[in-house]
């Protein structure tokens, strides 16, 4: 009896708990050793480990993780991803996009991965709500993914498969692996001559008034066309307006640092707590991971192909590689474009040109999320 009490933790341990603790360990390893999205993967990894330890009560009704989840990510409450978007808006500089606004279209083209993977998920027998949640992995944007997936599939009554945990883990893992996923696709779809197209960077001055008006413009236009995207757009653009207005530096600094850091800690732990053995270890999770990867690949491919169209229309003044940055994943995707472009032509600096489609991709993915949020529940019932 005493022995049972002493070792009740071991006795309550299931093989699935052990596997999930190992998965958590792998995420922590990737975060520390390879710096793969460490800000998110570290708390997610530890959250997964702690949740799968038996008898801890972290996910009981009044447990720590349940309290955090209900505070920021349950039911209609999407506080955590929206606060993260506020911080990201304060961190984002739209100057490269405003210097060359035509690259905004590349941010739209790269969202094709979302909609193609939606069709693929339906073909693999996921429900419409689950398919929408899985497809949004292609946005390559963490807060958008969490915001959309948690609204479409808030519980197992709405979606039979637990998708939130796998979807978020897939999104952040693939975002971390952008330097591995994107280059082969970029090289496959372009010739050496196309990759070598030089793009000279001239630091065109952008009026401050335009920088201040742009977030307001995006909010109004985006909000009118995709109303369900308004929470995301409003938070992102408010953060950016604080940054660009130059009159609320204290608030802007708080959003960029303290606020986003605190929310990141809580959000990571909550996501980790959804990775329980019963819900994570099944074939559906593998399918979700595969579909998410497909969404990333198709998004990259469609961005590069649209980049080729712009290359032709501009008389070979645009390097098609910058289209790959339209998948969002700021600033990793832009860095990958720079690296691939420079490997063909060392004096070619594409990073500032790629930052335009990169930040446009954030707007595009929020809009795509808004469309999914408005149409999927309407059609799924």
């Amino acid at each position, binding site marked *: 009896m005493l022995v049972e009490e002493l070792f009740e933790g071991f006795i309550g341990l299931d093989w699935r708990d052990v596997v999930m603790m190992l998965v958590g360990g792998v995420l922590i390893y990737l975060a520390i050793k390879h710096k793969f999205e460490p800000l998110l993967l570290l708390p997610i990894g530890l959250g997964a480990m702690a949740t799968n330890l038996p008898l801890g009560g972290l996910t009981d009704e009044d447990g720590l993780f349940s309290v955090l989840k209900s505070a920021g990510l349950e039911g209609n409450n999407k506080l955590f991803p929206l606060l993260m978007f506020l911080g990201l808006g304060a961190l984002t500089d739209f100057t490269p996009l*405003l210097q060359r606004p035509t690259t*905004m*279209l590349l941010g*739209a083209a790269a969202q094709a991965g*979302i*909609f193609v993977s*939606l069709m693929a998920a*339906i073909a693999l027998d996921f429900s419409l709500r689950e398919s929408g949640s899985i497809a949004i992995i292609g946005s390559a944007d963490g807060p958008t993914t969490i915001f959309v997936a948690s609204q479409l599939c808030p519980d197992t009554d709405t979606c039979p498969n637990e998708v939130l945990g796998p979807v978020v883990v897939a999104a952040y893992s693939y975002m971390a692996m952008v330097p591995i996923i994107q280059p082969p696709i970029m090289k496959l779809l372009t010739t050496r001559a196309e990759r070598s197209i030089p793009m000279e960077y001239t630091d065109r001055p952008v009026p401050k008034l335009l920088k201040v008006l742009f977030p307001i*413009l995006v909010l109004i236009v*985006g909000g009118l066309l995709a109303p369900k995207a308004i929470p995301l757009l409003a938070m992102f653009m408010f953060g950016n307006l604080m940054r660009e207005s130059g009159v609320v530096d204290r608030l802007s600094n708080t959003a960029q640092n303290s606020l986003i850091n605190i929310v990141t800690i809580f959000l990571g732990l909550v996501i980790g707590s959804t990775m329980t053995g019963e819900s994570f270890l099944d074939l559906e999770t593998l399918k979700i991971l595969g579909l998410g990867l497909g969404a990333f690949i198709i998004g990259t491919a469609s961005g590069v192909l649209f980049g080729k169209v712009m290359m032709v229309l501009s008389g070979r003044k645009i390097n098609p590689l910058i289209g790959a940055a339209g998948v969002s994943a700021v600033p990793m995707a832009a860095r990958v474009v720079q690296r691939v472009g420079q490997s063909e032509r060392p004096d070619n600096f594409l990073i500032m040109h790629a930052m335009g489609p990169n930040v446009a991709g954030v707007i595009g993915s929020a809009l795509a999320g808004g469309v999914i949020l408005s149409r999927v529940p309407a059609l799924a019932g």
Partner: protein
Amino acid sequence: MYLDGLEIAGLGTGMVFLALVVMLISTLSLRLLIDRLDKVRASSAPVAPPPAPPEEPPVAFSPATPVESAPSAPESVIATPKDKAARAAAIAVALYLTEEEEAEGRTDR
């Protein structure tokens, strides 16, 4: 469900493109407007520094040199409304003092 998926995919792609095209056009229009405003503002800004105040009071006119025939500064120098106002004020003061001198019979200069 395939049809639903197709509807969402078509609508979604179209909506994202439409929104970004509208944003692009609006951004370009705003930029154009701001540039025009800047040009207008620049053209209405002073092209020369305002003239330094005269060392002697501008009232030393004699009847031999009537105010009307006083040599005026070239237009390029007196270009701003502020300068023109200063000049008009100086002329008004000079006229007033000349009339006062005449009324008092001080025509000995």
